[in-house]
């Protein structure tokens, strides 16, 4: 009962605070924190669902109406949550470390970018861009193309052991990026580093503004992905993945078809990224290879690890924390430092105006990812919201298997 009251109060209080201080980052963080509290509090399921739905469907768009930037942050969180959920299948459930995951995102993004913009005229002559309504078809095209890419990547590398697989997927991610950067000749597919623009946006009913529409679209996709994930986790396939993660040989002996299970994991994870890629390209109107670097892949990996490998709420929380850290905390820190600099504040006799101009905290996301990865691996490899089965297993680590000589 206390939890229920506290949960309602937390949401109400944080929303009021957002309404009073619409520009403060800290206050917006408390709003996000209150949702997390609602999720973990011991309250009846209907109340939890109701509060979350209220916060996500009504309050968040309202906040966004007054401050569009927050809605943008929420949309980004949703996009990355989808990516983290996809990677969670590959890394968390199936235990295949994929360091080039963002390549699938790129494949989805480029599939709509090319056909949804006048750019396709350069390849096929005329008749483009496709009508905006095709966007909804391309959600599925992006899904299929990304899944196919996943299978194509998976086929040759499936025989590799874990750490080799990681390096090869990294190489694959780089290959896709280099291709996107250079396929402006001999035939101009990607327009190289200049990127593709303007990318068409979908037609919307009732004249909803685009920022709200993309927020709801992303939210819808994330919810669908979560449902699919939950169903997969407890299905035949999900169990096969987990068995494979724990011990490939034993899984094979128990009749798990390794090749098929691995391909399914790759295809599933990739397809989520593909769908979000299509949404991303339409939302941004402009894409170029810069959005699909190794840094992004590691960012998504950091989200999965932080939340807890194999855990669905973990992936969502990880995506929220990392995105907010990047978009709000680091940027906020940069702005604050700049203000202090311009105001000529001195700390311990050192004038902050003398700080070097190259020092921009917003550019240090790699350091954040790095610290997250190392600290989590050493102190809490199961993550913030560990998957239940995984938690038990990491609490009692097995001794390393002894080598049996040839």
């Amino acid at each position, binding site marked *: 009962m206390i939890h229920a009251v506290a949960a309602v109060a937390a949401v109400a209080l944080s929303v009021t605070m957002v309404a009073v201080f619409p520009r403060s980052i800290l206050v917006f963080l408390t709003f996000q924190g209150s949702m997390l509290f609602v999720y973990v509090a011991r309250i009846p399921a209907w109340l939890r669902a109701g509060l979350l739905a209220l916060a996500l469907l009504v309050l968040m768009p309202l906040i966004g109406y007054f401050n569009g930037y927050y809605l943008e942050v929420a949309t980004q969180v949703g996009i990355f949550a989808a990516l983290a959920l996809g990677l969670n299948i590959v890394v968390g459930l199936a*235990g295949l*470390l994929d*360091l080039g995951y963002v390549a699938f995102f790129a494949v989805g993004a480029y599939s709509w970018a090319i056909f949804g913009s006048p750019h396709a005229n350069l390849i096929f002559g005329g008749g483009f861009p496709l009508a905006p309504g095709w966007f909804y078809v391309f959600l599925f095209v992006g899904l299929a193309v990304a899944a196919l890419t996943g299978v194509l990547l998976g086929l*040759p*590398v499936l*025989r*590799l*052991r*874990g*750490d*080799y697989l*990681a*390096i*090869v997927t*990294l*190489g*694959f991610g*780089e*290959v896709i990026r*280099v*291709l996107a*950067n*250079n396929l402006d*000749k*001999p035939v101009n597919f990607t327009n190289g580093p200049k990127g593709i623009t303007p990318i068409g946006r979908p037609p919307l009913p009732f004249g909803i503004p685009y920022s709200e529409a993309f927020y709801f679209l992303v939210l819808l996709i994330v919810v669908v992905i979560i449902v699919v994930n939950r169903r997969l986790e407890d299905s035949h396939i999900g169990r096969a993945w987990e068995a494979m993660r724990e011990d490939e040989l034993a899984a094979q002996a128990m009749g798990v078809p390794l090749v098929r299970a691995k391909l399914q994991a790759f295809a599933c994870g990739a397809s989520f990224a593909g769908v979000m890629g299509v949404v991303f390209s339409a939302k941004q109107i402009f894409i170029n290879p810069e959005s699909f670097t*190794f840094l992004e892949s*590691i960012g998504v*990996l950091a989200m999965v*690890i932080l939340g807890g490998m194999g855990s669905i709420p973990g992936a969502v929380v990880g995506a929220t924390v990392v995105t907010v850290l990047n978009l709000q905390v680091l940027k906020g820190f940069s702005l604050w430092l700049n203000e202090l600099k311009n105001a000529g504040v001195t700390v311990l006799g050192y004038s902050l105006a003398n*700080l*070097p*101009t*190259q*020092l921009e905290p917003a*550019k*240090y996301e*790699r*350091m954040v*990812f*790095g*610290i*997250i*990865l*190392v*600290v989590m*691996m*050493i102190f809490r*490899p199961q993550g913030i919201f560990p998957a239940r089965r995984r938690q038990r297993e990491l609490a009692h*680590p097995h*001794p*390393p298997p*002894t*080598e049996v*000589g040839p």
Partner: protein
Amino acid sequence: MDYQLLIAIFPQVLLDGVLLGFMYALIALGYTMVYGVLEFINFAHSEIFIFGAFVGAEILLSLQSAGWLARLPWPVVLVLVILAGMLASGLLAVTVERVAYRPLRAAPRLIPLISAIGVSFFLQDIIRLFESIWRNAFNLVYPTMEVMNHRFELTSTLDVSVRSLVVIVAALLMLWGLHALVNRTKIGTAIRAVAEDQAAASLMGINVNRIISLTFLIGGAMGGAAGVLFGVQYSLINPYTGFIPGLKAFTAAVLGGIGNIPGAMLGGLVLGLLEAFAASYMSLLTGGAFGAEYKDIFAFSVLILILIFRPKGLLGEVVRGRA
């Protein structure tokens, strides 16, 4: 097609390939030695390598601003800088192992690899942070010594600069030194014993932890030397420069047979040559459709092909379990 041109540039491309190959070989040693003893890909090795380059650059820059760079004899400066780079990178590698890898030695395979990726990212930004505060710039240009730019013209199409000769000589000396260390000394025997079987080695009275630290020290030192040579040869460095050469050096290590020291040297040379030829000839052979920008793809394709068709590499052995 212009066959005359293809033949005319051949010696120069060969030389560039050998240079690049030695660079890869020196870096690859760090990957392969660590893999030999721990069966673990030290993902942060690319940053340990570029750290050496930065230490070298800082020393050269301070010598320059003190006015000593022109006064001291250049071989002395060079040896000093390489030694400093080796020491710095070696110690960094040992520290990284102590802090981020040792606590995870009993964990499932992927855990230390993820930790290593974290270390790699962390080091990139720490170097950037330091240089940003210290010099207000994180792209450094290696200060040059006049002698280095001197070129010997061997034929009308082939000339070789002093800096290239320096790189080749230094790399050869270090490869030879490492070979002697591993094969002819007691420490080398201990390293090979630990690589073979940790439990048995420790029963024979070898301090396994100390040998592992030593392996990181030696591998890191080789990387640091490679870093300084990289700076001398290519002159532009930034904290993120190390990543791609590191990845390629790993490819070289796998190409030669990971865990195998002569293999790393061979793999480095082969990959360097392949890449140099791909970079110069691809554009000529395809009429400009695919240029040098595809050389990275080329290197990764080599990696994937070896892993599929010959996972034990050219010289093979040492990999326990199936790749």
